[in-house]
């Protein structure tokens, strides 16, 4: 299996966009080496603005640049954009619905060694509860690249969530990226797995394991958390016995709760959530943390079996 960084997809797309549109600007908050926006800076030094360690000012200043007709991509770690600069995301960007793209990296438990202070497991919840905010959690390198292009092509605030590590390349998700439209990766009639972000590869592995056990398993990849593809979810609720959601994020306020809300209002069926429990993370290798915090195909399978038996 090939592994690539999702943040590299972001960085590559920024340079492609920069070549196409001179209104595209990139801001960073002293983590350009980590978000990889330094690669944009190397090509477009006059359209790159390092704000230093000031995420709050960066997001409000990006709002100002959007008011002047630019398309700013403000980049930092997920935890800093949402927790440190949550008010600026809300009041400066989401409320006036400005054309600011917030590109964040180092999200989820796979941030690894830096530990809980840097592992953003709450950011999807914070971003998706803001009115006007589009929230995209791409699954691999190529989908990250496509999502960044799609974000630039729409008018309005977008939260783009990337990780730190190298993640499996999933060729099934490299075609037809459309904001708000889930990708049906496997058709199935017994149970549905809905994944977001890098959990797509675990979801597909889980479907294979369930298939071996004789269960027909549907896999929906929900790269857009908001606007949520409700019709795909309702269809899954109607056509299969239940849903397992999988996200590299807290089980609170993320994909799982979003799906459960849609299901319970439209066609109640069991929904089980795979994600980080209501707890902070810790330092470790990203792969061992995936095991420790229960973010593996086998965890998805366990939940699916609960629904099916």
């Amino acid at each position, binding site marked *: 299996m090939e592994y690539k960084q999702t943040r590299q997809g972001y960085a590559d797309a920024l340079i492609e966009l920069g070549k196409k549109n001179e209104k595209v600007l990139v801001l960073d908050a002293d983590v350009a080496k980590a978000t990889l926006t330094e690669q944009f800076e190397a090509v477009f030094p006059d359209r790159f603005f390092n704000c230093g360690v000031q995420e709050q000012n960066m997001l*409000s200043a990006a709002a100002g640049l959007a008011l002047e007709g630019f398309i700013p991509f403000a980049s930092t770690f997920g935890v800093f954009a949402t927790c440190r600069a949550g008010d600026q995301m809300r009041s400066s960007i989401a409320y006036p619905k400005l054309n600011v793209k917030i590109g964040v990296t180092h999200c989820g438990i796979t941030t690894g060694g830096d530990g809980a202070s840097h592992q953003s497991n709450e950011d999807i919840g914070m971003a998706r509860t803001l009115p006007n905010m589009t929230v995209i959690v791409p699954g691999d390198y190529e989908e990250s690249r496509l999502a960044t292009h799609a974000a630039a092509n729409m008018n309005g605030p977008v939260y783009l969530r990337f990780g730190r590590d190298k993640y499996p390349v999933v060729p099934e998700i490299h075609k037809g990226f459309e904001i708000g439209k889930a990708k049906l990766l496997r058709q199935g009639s017994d149970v549905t797995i809905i994944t977001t972000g890098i959990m797509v590869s675990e979801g597909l592995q889980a479907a294979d394991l369930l298939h071996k056990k004789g269960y027909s398993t549907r896999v929906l990849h929900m790269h857009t958390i908001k606007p949520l593809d409700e019709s795909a979810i309702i269809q899954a609720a109607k056509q299969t016995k239940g849903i397992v959601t999988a996200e590299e994020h807290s089980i609170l306020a993320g994909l799982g709760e979003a799906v459960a809300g849609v299901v319970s209002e439209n066609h109640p069926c069991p929904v089980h959530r795979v994600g980080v429990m209501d707890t902070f993370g810790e330092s470790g290798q990203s792969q061992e943390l995936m095991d420790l915090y229960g973010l593996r195909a086998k965890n998805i399978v366990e939940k699916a079996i609960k629904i099916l038996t």
Partner: protein
Amino acid sequence: MIPMLNQEKHEFLKNKAREIRMEIVSMVHRANSGHVGGSLGAADILTALYYHVMKHNPKNPEWEERDRFILSKGHCTPVIYAVLADCGYFPKEDLLEFRRPGSHLQGHPYQPKTPGIDACTGTLGIGISTGVGMALGAKLKKQDHYYYILCGDGEIQEGQVWEAAMFANKYKLDNVIGFVDRNYLQTDGYSEKVMPLDPLIPKWESFGWKVFEIDGHDFETIITTIEEAKKEDRPVMIIANTIKGKGVPFMEGKAEWHGKPPGKEDFEKAILELE
């Protein structure tokens, strides 16, 4: 020094500020909600800006080359709404709906809906940050208009204000002319007791800004200082000493009039004082 303003213009501004103050008191009384003290205190600065200094066109609020005004102390909407309505950005009748459901005149400025409002503000600190971002945008487009940003003195206790100050210095934003509305009063009382701010001048100077300190109720001084500010090749902060509640003697210098709407009796008394 030759005065910038002739007697006639001076009288015009004085009278305009008085009308604006009457509108402020009426608006907050009617809505039974809003910030009257800080609005009255800033009335002379906004009058000087909108009726003498700024390049703007109420018939074309989106005019690309206009000067921008950002009310970073976003709670003082009564003063900006009174000014914008009087200039003709929207009908004066709209003021009757201040803070009412369905009105574009929200408690704090909402740029997408209100003609003449250049940025959303309301949580403190975001206005100056948005303003410096806009000013950088104008520099990138090689435009030469100005960004006037009004901060409250309590507001500059916010760390984000100083982030914005560093940013403006880094990018040499000489198109930013800020004001600190220095009335020494904030919601919980005397600023130097709540969280000391003095000495303000060296603070801003050490962040790379040119600083002027003026009487924020003297039109001649406000206007000549802005002309001086325009000659600078760096961002400028004007510390404008003001009196919260200015123009209504029983409200002057009283923190309690920060966010308290005047009832019927106080309203009538205030109008008599202003007439």
